[in-house]
């Protein structure tokens, strides 16, 4: 027994970080990196929520002047840009960074330093948007900044550059995280976890990481083209010189539409995990669920033009993309039916995480139906740029992604902190947020049908839009109170919550096999898996033999997950932070001068060399 304790202690020492600030900036522990990612995204979610409430206050009454047009433009641009690029995508990556190694029974991700680099770049993106905002240089053209409005002719100054470069930061972060997630899932599954025995959450993250890899280069490319039009007088989007503004839209939406699913598919992974645990049965229809996830991932790349129906494209193209957009309702529907079947045939326990799943099903179905409506080109011509679209996108993104995320938060909070959230306050927050959300956004469908355009800062009283707008604003305020309860619950439960123990919900996947919170090395031994729900078996199998005096991981084969070789895993390092600083300097500099790309490359080269320079092992 004492020998085993020594082994665990040595593992904890080997995988632990230095204390203090140095430990904080050099850590490559996936749990710590994910935790700071998640805390930052939640802080921004709150900030963006406050912006939303501010806008709802403005629109509650007609002809209000408290926010002028410019202030309103900045508010919705900040809200949309931050929500899409700094909250929704990063928080899903962060959940993967935290959960994937735990669900794989692993001690870290494939590339721990790349993980640290990803976070620092993300932090750079956050600062890129919010620091200039404090200096009153705020992007003001919405979350997709179309030229020619964002081009050099109509947007002098640096507002558009800041938006474009914020995207570069966050996309570098997201791509780094995605490659890491992809390789970790492909090569670091525990022995026995063949692809066919992989939890649905891991399938969801595998597909998401591949989608990110194929979608995000588009937005990096197009924003770089925009910056170069603005900085060095290229003419990609300048019609007078042979350029074309619609090209921007094509490339942007080639990224923009998959992005919606990059946010949504991880949420389906949360739904699968929560539904399984709280229905106390394996999820109904594993194979159709996996296939429909793959189908969503593929189809998502063939829909982008439905964001451009009003641009004046050839009719045949519009018809094709209408059909393609309708087709994606089929795999999305399969998902919903499978979860309903699981609920129907299981023994559901309606704890807060499952409540969020129910809210997801209802809200996402409404959002999906309004999506089928807007996917139809003729109807879209009437609805585009109205509040109907605002309602639709919030039903899909909040209902489809944020509700499952809140459920995931409640579900895995005890694993991360060792304590349970208060169920009672969790339910209060749930009803306030879900009720407030529906009260806030459902009327927007009607406002859109009545013709209220999106992105207006005020409206005259004669329009008759006031009553529904007041309703929407009251709903937003109620949801805001709910959010405060949710965050308050999370903070108070940190020291007042009941002790959770390793597996408070009786979950079946490997993350519940270790203590809560997990030790630095996550698992003392290598778990071996023989079915989809390893923790529901009466026996537990493990492998041994990894070093405990230096960081070592087990790699397995890509399909069958057979033990392959032992991989050294890097120690904590300052180089990811230094590299991120060097890259940040180049990105910020390149807003002002193209020479930043040349001179900025030198410190990056130096930092990357330091990063990869092999350490002598004694």
């Amino acid at each position: 027994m004492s020998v085993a304790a020594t082994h665990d202690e040595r593992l904890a020492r080997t995988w632990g970080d230095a204390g203090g600030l140095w430990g904080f900036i050099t850590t490559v522990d996936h749990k710590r990196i994910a935790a700071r990612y998640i805390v930052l995204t939640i802080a921004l979610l709150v900030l963006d929520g406050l912006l939303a409430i501010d806008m709802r206050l403005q629109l509650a009454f007609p002809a209000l002047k408290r926010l002028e047009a410019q202030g309103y433009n900045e508010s919705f641009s900040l809200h949309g840009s931050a929500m899409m690029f700094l909250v929704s995508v990063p928080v899903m990556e962060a959940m993967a960074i935290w959960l994937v190694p735990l669900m794989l029974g692993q001690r870290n991700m494939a590339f721990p330093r790349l993980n640290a680099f990803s976070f620092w770049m993300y932090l750079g993106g956050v600062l890129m948007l919010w620091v200039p905002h404090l200096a009153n240089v705020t992007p003001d053209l919405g979350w997709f900044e179309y030229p020619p409005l964002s081009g050099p002719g109509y947007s002098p100054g640096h507002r558009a550059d800041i938006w474009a470069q914020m995207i570069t930061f966050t996309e570098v972060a997201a791509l780094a995280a995605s490659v890491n997630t992809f390789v970790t899932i492909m090569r670091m599954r525990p022995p026995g976890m063949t692809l066919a025995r992989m939890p649905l959450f891991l399938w969801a993250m595998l597909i998401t990481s591949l989608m990110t890899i194929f979608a995000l280069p588009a937005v990096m490319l197009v924003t770089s083209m925009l910056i170069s039009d603005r900085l060095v007088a290229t003419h990609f989007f300048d019609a007078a010189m042979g350029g074309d503004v619609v090209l921007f839209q094509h490339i942007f939406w080639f990224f923009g539409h998959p992005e919606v699913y990059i946010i949504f598919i991880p949420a389906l992974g949360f739904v699968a995990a929560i539904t399984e645990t709280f229905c106390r049965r394996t999820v109904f229809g594993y194979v159709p669920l996996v296939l429909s996830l793959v189908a969503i991932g593929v189809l998502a790349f063939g829909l982008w033009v439905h964001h451009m129906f009003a641009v004046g494209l050839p009719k045949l193209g519009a018809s094709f993309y209408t059909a393609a957009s309708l087709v994606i309702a089929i795999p999305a529907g399969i998902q919903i039916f499978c979860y309903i079947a699981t609920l129907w045939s299981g023994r559901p326990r309606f704890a807060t995480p499952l409540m969020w799943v129910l809210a997801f099903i209802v809200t996402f179905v409404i959002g999906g139906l309004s999506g089928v409506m807007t996917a139809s080109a003729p109807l879209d011509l009437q609805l585009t740029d109205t509040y109907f679209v605002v309602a639709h996108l919030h039903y899909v993104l909040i209902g489809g992604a944020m509700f499952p995320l809140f459920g995931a938060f409640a579900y895995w909070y005890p694993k991360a902190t060792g304590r349970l959230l208060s169920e009672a306050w969790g339910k209060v927050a749930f009803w306030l947020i879900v009720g407030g959300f529906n009260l806030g956004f459902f009327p927007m469908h009607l406002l859109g049908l009545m013709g209220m355009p999106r992105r207006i800062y005020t409206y005259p009283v004669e329009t008759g839009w006031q009553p529904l707008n007041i309703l929407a604003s009251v709903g937003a305020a109620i949801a805001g109170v709910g959010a405060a309860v949710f965050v308050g619950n999370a903070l108070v439960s940190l020291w007042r919550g009941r002790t959770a123990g390793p597996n408070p919900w009786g979950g079946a996947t490997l993350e519940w096999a270790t203590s809560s919170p997990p030790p630095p090395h996550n698992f003392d031994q290598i778990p071996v898996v023989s079915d989809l729900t390893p923790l529901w078996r009466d026996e537990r199998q493990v492998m041994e033999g990894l070093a405990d005096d230096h960081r070592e991981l087990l790699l397995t084969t890509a399909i069958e997950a057979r033990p392959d070789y032992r991989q050294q895993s890097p120690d904590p390092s300052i180089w990811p932070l230094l590299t991120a600083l060097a890259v940040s300097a180049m990105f910020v500099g390149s807003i002002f001068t193209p020479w930043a790309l040349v001179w900025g490359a030198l410190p990056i080269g130096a930092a990357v060399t330091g990063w990869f320079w092999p350490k002598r092992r004694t």
Partner: protein
Amino acid sequence: MSAQPPATVVGDVSGLPDTAMGPRSLVWWGTLGFMLIEGTAFLLAAAAYLYLRGQATTWPPSGHPPPDLTLGALFTVILLLSEIPNRWLAAKAKAQETRPVRLGIVVMSVLGIVLMAIRYLEFGRLNVNWDHDAYGSATWMLMILHATHVLTDLADTVVLGACIFTRKITASQFSDVNDNSFYWSFVVLTWLPIYALVYWGPRLL
């Protein structure tokens, strides 16, 4: 909630190797991931070029002769030939042979420098500037995108070289050399469609 059943030890991994080469190695997969990202960027940039071509009545727009063929052809030939030492280097890295690997790294570094020098001259023979019109912008975008990749791999090769000349080469560094060769093959392959677009697009499209 439920206590875990006691664990049965069913295997010991301490006898497994501690490095792997090629598609078995972790870094190979990471390299693959970044190739997919960069390959997508190349494809989209090429699509943008073709899209802009579709919007124009003549290509290149009047006033620009197409890029001179000589330097582009020279670059392409040397790049393609560089695959021979590159594959040889990969094989020697796989076989973990120190001297040939050191020689191969030097050869690949020299080839990279020569190619970058030609690339530098190529920019002067494109017969269009990036700020002339959208054709010029698209041409320069493709060329810079690819030049960045040549330069990145050159830097990687030089640093690897510095590393393996100053110390005994470990198995994981042999693996790094192998992955670096893998990446160079990607740089070679991606050039072919870009070469076709930049040099033959203005003549044939």
